């Protein structure tokens, strides 16, 4: 395993403290998600792939906090989070159902220096569902800095409606694989609903030096296996996974 610090990063100050985030935009147009754009006080620049922690505080002092990947480019004046609303999600359901423009939240970040892309290492990013969020930040950064030739994003979801940022991903050249919906292709044919094929990954992973995989435990395990078949060694793979297991 190599160190995360081998790439130039702009987060030299890794000690973060709690600060205030004012909600400037709330967008609930993707079913099951809420997109929040936050004005963070005393903000530190992030590296694409990092996350913020949001903390909610009840009148009696009870608090709940969760981590959310950053979707925005570091140059964006606001910090954008795309939060998936989870069943019984104490924080996510509050953000989805209650939060309004002008609300103040407690925030801490940016956090994490491992699952980050600094723009130099040729990489493939493979996301399952909401796992695409950190890769949106990487893509936005790459397009702004002209480093997008080194970044291949692959997003898998059940249906297009359940894939946040689907239009943006598509126009940025990401490969989209839907598992429960046939998908029209530019040449007039269709990609039949299916999980990612090993051949699809092999073609996209050609020549990469690193892979980022973000998704559920089962998805990460599956992608790790087909990346391995495509010649991507496990020590080249950085993982962020979520979701319960029995």
């Amino acid at each position, binding site marked *: *395993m190599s160190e995360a610090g081998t790439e130039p990063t702009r987060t030299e100050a890794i000690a973060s403290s709690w600060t205030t985030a004012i909600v400037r935009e709330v967008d609930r147009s993707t079913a099951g998600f809420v997109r929040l754009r936050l004005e963070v006080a005393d903000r530190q620049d992030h590296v694409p792939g990092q996350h913020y922690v949001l903390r909610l505080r009840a009148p009696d002092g009870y608090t709940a906090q969760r981590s959310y990947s950053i979707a925005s480019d570091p140059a964006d004046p606001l910090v954008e989070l795309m939060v998936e609303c989870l069943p019984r999600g*104490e924080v996510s359901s509050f953000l989805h159902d209650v939060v309004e423009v002008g609300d*103040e939240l407690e925030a801490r970040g940016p956090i994490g220096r491992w699952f980050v892309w600094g723009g130099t290492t040729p990489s493939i990013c493979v996301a399952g569902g909401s796992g695409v969020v950190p890769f949106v930040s990487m893509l936005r950064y790459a397009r702004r800095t002209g480093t997008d030739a080194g970044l291949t994003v692959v997003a898998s979801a059940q249906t297009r409606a359940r894939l946040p940022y689907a239009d943006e991903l598509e126009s940025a050249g990401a490969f989209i694989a839907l598992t429960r919906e046939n998908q029209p292709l530019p040449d007039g044919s269709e990609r039949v609903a299916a999980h990612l094929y090993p051949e699809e990954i092999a073609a996209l992973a050609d020549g990469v030096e690193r892979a980022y995989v973000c998704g559920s435990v089962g998805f990460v395990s599956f992608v790790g296996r087909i990346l391995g078949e495509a010649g991507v060694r496990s020590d080249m793979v950085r993982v962020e996974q979520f979701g319960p297991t029995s």
Partner: protein
Amino acid sequence: MGITRGFTGGARRGGDTRLPPGQYDTGAGWPVLSAELTPQVDLDEWTLTVDGLVDRPTTWDWRGIHALPPSSYFGDIHCVTTWSKFDTTFSGVSVDALLQVTGVRLEATHVFATSTTGYTTNLPLSDITDGKAWIVWEFDGKPLTAEHGGPVRLLVPHLYFWKSAKWVTRLELRDHDEQGFWERNGYHDRGDPWLEQRYQGDA
């Protein structure tokens, strides 16, 4: 900090005194979190080495470590991502039993744990001695699965769970502290959940 408008606490809210601050009870679930792909470790090739500032550096294989006196932990575990899991049972051997074999040199103050994947974490020696840490291969009476660190992981349940290195293969005793993987990447050096030592910068 001020109150969050409209927030009273959701379904997870327990008010349970067993929950450290900022944690919730994950119930029957056990989330899987790791920074790398899950390795498949062959038991015939598995070893655990305790070396560094010890009198007798020692490597155990699967059969050898089972010859040590068994020891179990029953209690709660706490992950920095804010879930806690109550009433877990892990079985294996106490780290004390390993150190009894190797001896500990006077100048040893810290331990640096390494996994087969290259994952590392650092701990003060006092956090893995006197019945506070285990090397475990069973969870609730069944072999520890690979995604949860099997065949063998470190268990330091009084600290956040990233300290309980999955797929552990080496404990090196040192006379100084050096940050491990997550500690270099923004997480706290010690990680006491009752003090909410989550990230670098926490007291």
